């Protein structure tokens, strides 16, 4: 017999309290990242070492700007989820773990916003 309450069974969220939602979010973002990263690697190979004018011209084209922002969003979303799993697996001290997870989320948000803002500056300012 099960000692779970009917509500607990109906929700089906298990010991993680969030079910498989994070696992799913990790997969969905990775599906987006496969084509985006292939595109970005080709772009960096062609323009990564470029001088200022060339790099500006590349990043300010609408397609490059939009795809770069999409890559940043998917990367930091995916990366924050992954780093959270690593922290939760190896840091058992509850308070330290919580602090590190918050730090991971904040760092991802700061870097994502900074990167997106930089792309917008280049794309709209040129």
């Amino acid at each position, binding site marked *: 017999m099960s000692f779970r309450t009917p509500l607990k069974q109906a929700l089906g969220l298990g010991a993680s309290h969030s079910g498989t939602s994070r696992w799913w979010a990790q997969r969905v973002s990775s599906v987006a990242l496969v084509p985006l990263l292939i595109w970005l690697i080709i772009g*960096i190979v062609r323009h990564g070492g470029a001088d200022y004018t060339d790099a500006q011209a590349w990043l300010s084209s609408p397609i490059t700007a939009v795809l770069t922002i999409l890559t940043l969003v998917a990367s930091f979303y995916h990366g924050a989820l992954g780093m959270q799993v690593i922290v939760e697996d190896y840091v058992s001290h509850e308070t330290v773990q919580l602090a590190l997870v918050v730090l991971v989320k904040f760092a991802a948000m700061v870097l994502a916003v900074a990167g997106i803002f930089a792309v917008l500056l280049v794309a709209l300012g040129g």
Partner: protein
Amino acid sequence: MDSDDRPLSPHLQIYRFPTTVITSITHRITGALLALGTLGVTYWLIALASGPQVYAAARAFFGNGFVQLILFFWTYALFYHLCNGIRHLGWAIDYGFELERARKSAVAVFVAAGILTVITWLFALS
């Protein structure tokens, strides 16, 4: 009763890691390295948005021999995580999860990531 000479199993020093175990932990390590590397990506974008002088400094930084070496290994980490990520997506839809196929695809991921890294750098440096 003397219990000192009883075998310890599995013991870390004599335990032969299956290939699939090595790919699993490498996926996690490369993921963490990629997350760290997003600092470089954001730095490049902000530098490009901050004008020619800041960009020239960033270009000099990324052109530095030691930094280029780090970027080379970072490229390997990126391709490894990308290829092994696709392998994981296959498993998520129940493709290639049999032991022997998972072992073969593990070897394939290490090799493919190496080939893609070399090709990318040949193009980048030419």
